[in-house]
């Protein structure tokens, strides 16, 4: 069975990116002085997942680097090494290196081998640092994982996994990876494995004690196993508790002996003491072969008898014995002295009596263990409840298109029924009203599929700020608000770069150095506030800083040097907008962070291409606030329909300021070509749409039509149209899919009557107006 692995690569890349992102945000949240164990575990799990799947897919460089990373993480997690700030730095760098490897595997850029070696050395150095003698890591990791996980094992279950691997998997590293993967999920025990060199079908029998559901690992087994040659049986009766494991796992490597001891101590409420005793117990157990299990058991009970938990414990003991006695294979096992012999013949243990005991034990345990358990339990719940599927964007878009169709058809029906007036039967009208409601609900929920919280973007900025502020020697705190605000996925992807730039800009130009800040009477730590919220039909994202503010005079002076048309009379808004001009920079010196004057123009262009706009508010010495307004989604637009001749056009509502009917004499011409209209004392250039589009207007006099005042990137123009028709939400369709770009048109939409209406590109129209004016002037 040969599988084209490349089809899974994309999923692997995406998942690894997500794991890396999760790891990074966790690292940044980590309190170095007092790291939260659960966070450390989460970081470890992320690294481990990357390692596991990288190995499966044969990306050895990724797997190796992650492995080294994992080693260090593991030691920190086990409290063998104290967490230090330089370790966090090293982790972050390692994350970057891994990301660059991922990119390289996807054909984007190359990996800096020096950086890889450097970071691997650094991690090794950190992990060998000052800790206790290091043990063989994989085995140790597996055992310790068990130790760490035991407190949360209220939901643990035992799975019996049997499979026959494919030839490829059996000969390659596939099996090893699978075993690693399973070990990461819980306690793995290999009941039977094929003898090395054996030919013919290889049979594996594993037992996994885990708190995960079978779905978590079933896929991987399916992947490794020969077509359908696998089976997972859940041993329900083994309610994941140390007590159960007791009789069963005398000497299996997956379940270290602490486990047994642990199960007993739970009820005692004396955790520390128990832990100590556990060590003692450990000593007892280890050298003993499985035959000795029963006597040892007695011994360990001896330990506990004086403890308050003993009633429970003894109850458990009885049950535990109950297990052994009826087993016919038990004597044989004793003779063999071979622990493994136990498991093969045992059917899924049918011991319902076990369950209540387990719950009795578990209950006080939870109370006794306190905080960490609760936290872990919570995470476990969150993980299992948060199920999702991966669907290609194309499918979602197809769905959105279909719903768009439905909306149009529904509008058509509604229009037809309205034309029927009284002749339409009541029931038809009711049905149509219902259809309208349902369609709207459907549209909303379909649209929400594409919506993602903006925290996907925001989460990367703590890192940007951390790195950059360190580099610039500034103290900056980043505050984020409204991370749950949702916006379209395509917008999320496209807003990241402009926002990063705005933040870098704030950091470099906005926030002053600590000395300057103190001198200005501010706190030495600057604040950058990132805020997202809904306003009207828009998403508003604000990047604010409490830095120096924009120097109006300096901008004006620079603008004059560059020969831009500026005057003292310009409003602050207009002056500040100059910084979006290409090549404009007020920085006295160019740093490698910013100051080259490229960027802000790109920011503005990117945001405009998304149908959004940027505004700047600034007070000198107080701070600056950049406000980005974006439409909720790229697929739907609030539009105003206007008539020109027999054609209907859609104007994006966000650009419309006002509309008015010009009075005779309001319209003047410049050198008999360009026209301007006077609006409250201000002269605005007039764009006559029917002239521009060579259409026949219904009017031959401007006073009969309507002037729509548009605000296109800070410049105002008046657009002359025949009439205003109404306001709609329109679904944007591409004109370029089957045709080409048309100047002055940004797209098309389908109106209620099924006809196509074109959407005007306000920026381009304003640009045309400007060229007209320049020609005239």
């Amino acid at each position, binding site marked *: 069975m040969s599988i084209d692995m490349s089809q899974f690569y994309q999923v692997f890349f995406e998942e690894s990116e997500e794991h890396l992102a999760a790891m990074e945000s966790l690292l940044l949240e980590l309190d170095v002085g007092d790291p939260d164990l659960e966070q450390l575990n989460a970081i470890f799990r992320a690294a481990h997942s990357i390692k596991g799947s990288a190995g499966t897919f044969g990306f050895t460089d990724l797997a190796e680097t992650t492995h080294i990373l994992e080693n260090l993480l593991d030691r920190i997690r086990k409290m063998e090494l104290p967490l230090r700030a330089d370790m966090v730095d090293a982790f972050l760098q390692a994350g970057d290196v891994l990301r660059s490897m991922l990119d390289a595997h996807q054909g984007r850029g190359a990996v800096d081998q020096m950086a890889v070696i450097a970071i691997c050395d650094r991690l090794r150095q950190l992990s060998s640092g000052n800790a206790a003698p290091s043990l063989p890591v994989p085995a140790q990791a597996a055992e310790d994982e068990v130790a760490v996980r035991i407190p949360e094992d209220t939901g643990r279950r035992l799975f019996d996994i049997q499979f026959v691997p494919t030839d490829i998997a059996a000969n390659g590293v596939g099996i090893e990876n699978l075993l690693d993967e399973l070990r990461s999920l819980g306690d793995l025990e290999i009941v039977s494995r094929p003898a090395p060199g054996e030919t013919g079908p290889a049979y594996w029998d594993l037992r996994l004690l885990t708190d995960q559901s079978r779905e978590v690992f079933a896929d991987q087994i399916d992947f490794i196993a020969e077509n359908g040659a696998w089976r997972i049986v859940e041993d329900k009766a083994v309610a994941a508790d140390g007590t159960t494991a007791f009789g069963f796992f005398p000497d299996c490597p997956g379940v270290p002996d602490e486990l047994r001891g642990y199960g007993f101590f739970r009820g005692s409420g004396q955790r520390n003491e128990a832990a100590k005793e556990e060590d003692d117990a450990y000593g007892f157990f280890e050298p003993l072969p499985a035959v000795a299990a029963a006597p040892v058991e007695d011994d360990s009970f001896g330990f506990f008898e004086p403890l308050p938990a003993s009633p429970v414990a003894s109850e458990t003991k009885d049950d535990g014995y109950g297990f052994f006695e009826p087993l016919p294979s038990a004597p044989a096992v004793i003779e063999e002295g071979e622990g493994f012999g136990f498991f093969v013949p045992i059917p899924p243990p049918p011991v319902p009596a076990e369950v209540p005991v387990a719950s009795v034990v578990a209950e006080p345990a939870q109370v006794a263990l306190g905080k960490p358990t609760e936290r872990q339990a919570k995470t476990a719940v969150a993980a299992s409840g948060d199920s999702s599927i991966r669907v290609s964007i194309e499918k979602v878009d197809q769905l959105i*298109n279909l719903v*768009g*169709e439905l909306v*149009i058809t529904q509008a058509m029906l509604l229009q037809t029924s309205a034309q029927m007036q009284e002749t339409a039967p009541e029931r038809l009208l009711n049905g149509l009203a219902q259809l309208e409601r349902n369609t709207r609900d459907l549209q909303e929920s379909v649209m929400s599929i594409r919506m993602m919280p903006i925290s996907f973007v925001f989460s990367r900025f703590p890192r940007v700020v951390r790195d950059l502020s360190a580099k610039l020697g500034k103290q900056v705190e980043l505050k984020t608000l409204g991370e749950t605000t949702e916006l379209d996925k395509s917008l999320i992807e496209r807003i990241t770069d402009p926002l990063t730039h705005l933040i870098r800009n704030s950091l470099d130009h906005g926030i002053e150095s600590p000395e300057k800040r103190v001198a200005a009477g501010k706190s030495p730590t600057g604040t950058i506030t990132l805020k997202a919220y809904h306003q009207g039909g828009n998403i508003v994202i604000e990047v604010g800083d409490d830095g120096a503010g924009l120097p109006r005079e300096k901008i004006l002076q620079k603008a004059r040097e560059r020969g831009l048309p500026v005057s003292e009379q310009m409003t602050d808004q207009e002056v500040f907008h100059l910084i979006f001009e290409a090549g404009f920079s007020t920085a006295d010196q160019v740093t490698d962070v910013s100051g080259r004057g490229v960027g802000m123009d790109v920011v503005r262009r990117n945001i405009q291409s998304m149908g959004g706009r940027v505004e700047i508010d600034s007070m000198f010495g107080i701070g600056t606030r950049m406000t980005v307004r974006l439409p909720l989604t790229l697929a739907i637009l609030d539009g105003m329909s206007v008539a020109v001749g027999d*054609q209907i056009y859609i104007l994006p509502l966000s650009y419309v300021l006002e509309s008015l009917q010009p009075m005779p004499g309001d319209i003047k011409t410049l050198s008999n070509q360009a026209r301007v209209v006077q609006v409250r004392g201000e002269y605005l250039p007039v764009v006559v749409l029917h002239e*521009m*589009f*060579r*259409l026949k207007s219904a009017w031959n006099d401007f006073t009969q039509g309507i002037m729509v005042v548009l605000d296109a990137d800070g410049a105002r123009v008046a657009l002359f149209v025949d009439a205003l028709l109404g306001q709609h939400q329109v679904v944007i*369709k*591409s*004109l*370029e*899919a*089957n*045709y*080409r*770009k*048309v*100047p*002055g*048109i940004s797209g*098309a939409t*389908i109106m209620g009557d*099924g*006809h*196509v*209406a*074109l959407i005007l590109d306000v920026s381009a129209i304003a640009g045309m107006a400007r060229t007209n004016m320049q020609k005239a002037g």
Partner: protein
Amino acid sequence: MEVMMQGAAAGEDDLVASEFLTFTLGSEEYAIDILKVQEIRGYETPTLIANAPPFIKGVINLRGIIVPIVDLRIKFNLGKVEYTPFTVVIILNIAGRVIGAVVDSVSDVLSLTSAQVRQAPDFSGSFDTKYILGLASIDQRMLIVTDIERLMTSADMELIEAAAE
């Protein structure tokens, strides 16, 4: 290039006949590869596109897709340009795009073997010979076998940005 293409086509198509859709423009009859045709529908008034050449009538809504409509009669100065309930639009699927072409009428679906298609004599005019795969005669009719894909994607048609020549 032309000769090569035809040579290759002749080799493959000697025995296998391809199906062609024939339509009329004025008094001329054209044949195009039927596999490029998505559907045939009646003419409806399209939405004008500003500053487009006159043969591009505009765009229509074809079940949610915006489709440009080209009037081949205007493009090639053939026949009377009038729109009646019988005016036909052939919706073509070409190079991943959907394009509508207005013709006078659709007449037939025919099988032509490459032996029946003869090379067209060179002539110049608005309808360049490079879009003509050859001429075929069926009874008394002469069919102009057209490379519709090449024609529609050409820069002449102004349908596609940076059209390949």
